[in-house]
């Protein structure tokens, strides 16, 4: 049996761009994004689904990329933290995290952002409690979460105003 050499070609879209790469079937999606596609914005912390740093959007839904195999992403659409900004314009959540001291070392930030983008897509007017529940699966060891919650509420308000005002 040649299971060590068992590889498959994986075709997927990441942040709107199509990729096709061979990868060992045992490779996690997080390692595939970082090592094969060189998209190192997705961070790898605990590698057993506890810390939330590796959270990506899989077909628009948040998921732990360390708890998926890259081969499972074949034919699917992934969004990572690199896909949130529009060129040099930060996503409103990214700008708000900067304004509210919502990050310090930045390790948890990619997972926080993807998780909170899903929250604001589902619920454009979350309460502080909703935000806390949403990030209950994302560990941050330096900001103390307060800035992240404040930033999310601020971004939500700006995004609502933007949606109502301009588009």
């Amino acid at each position, binding site marked *: 049996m040649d299971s060590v050499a068992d590889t498959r070609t994986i075709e997927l879209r990441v942040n709107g761009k199509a990729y096709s790469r061979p990868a060992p079937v045992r490779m996690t999606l997080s390692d595939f994004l970082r090592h094969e596609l060189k998209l190192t914005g997705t961070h790898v912390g605990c590698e*057993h689904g506890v810390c939330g740093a590796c959270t990506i959007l899989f077909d628009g839904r948040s998921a732990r990329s360390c*708890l998926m195999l890259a081969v499972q992403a074949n034919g699917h659409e992934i969004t990572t933290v690199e896909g949130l900004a529009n060129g040099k314009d930060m996503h409103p959540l990214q700008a708000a995290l900067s304004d509210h001291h919502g990050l310090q070392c930045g390790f948890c930030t990619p997972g926080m952002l993807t998780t909170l983008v899903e929250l604001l897509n589902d619920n454009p007017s979350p309460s502080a409690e909703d935000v806390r*529940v949403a990030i209950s699966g994302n560990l941050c060891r330096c900001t103390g979460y307060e800035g992240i919650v404040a930033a999310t509420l601020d971004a939500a308000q700006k995004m609502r105003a933007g949606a109502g005002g301009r588009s």
Partner: protein
Amino acid sequence: MKPPPFSYHDPETLEQAVELLATLDNAKALAGGQSLMPMLNMRFVLPDHVVDLNRVSELSGIRRNGQTIEIGAMTRQRDLEFSSEIATACPLMSEALTHVGHRQTRNRGTIGGSLCHLDPAAELVCVAAALDAVVEVVGPNGRREIPFAEFPAGYMSPAIDFTELVSRVTFPVWPRETGHAFVEFSRRHGDFAIVSAAAMLLLDGAGRVSRAVLALGGVGAVPLRMHDVEAALIGQAPTAELIRRVSETCRTVEAVGDVYVPASYRQHLACVMSRRALETALSRADRSAAAA
């Protein structure tokens, strides 16, 4: 922290999946991956073959069928959480799901995966025990149904063969007047419950208990049904004093201890969680229900 080498199979039909499990040595079925993937990353399991069920679309779905609700094994916890069908027919499950991990894990995790992993602290396992779910499994010899009381063979070990797959879980629908409650104690939201309790109470026209269920998760090696408590409630007027007294009997339940939580603390929580679950279920039970 990388998975060990294995061969990967991604069948599209249940028949193909069953065939693979029946013919491959040391194969493991991969459902939502929220338990198996950590176990692979930590090399607690070393399968030669992984049979991924995520492309088997016939294993997903929620269907109301008269007085039962049938759930495909690969139905995501998220889809159950947001299902209006589940909210109506099985509100105990809706409430329990808010305690299951986090949004990111519920987006992938499945009901069949949770039941097969059979962690005694898992919320869906406790719900299945409380509601006497029926688990349908498919193997090389066809389909069979297992009442949930017979499903756990032991700690984290379902009573199914290596060549069998859980295909569907069926829950009975209780009358709309039933009061339900799922409560748990954990150190942080989304952590495994140290102790959880699920209760269902149905009252008759005279305000006495006509049907009662109490199940405890996290206490023992398998989820526990507290049949003595249920029997002590049926036919009685559910006073605060009665609920306190029957909950107190849970203090003597056989409990497991570990380095973090001694057995005596689990017994204490069994008592407190039982009381809270029964009180909440009672407060939600419709007392105007007609005896007929």
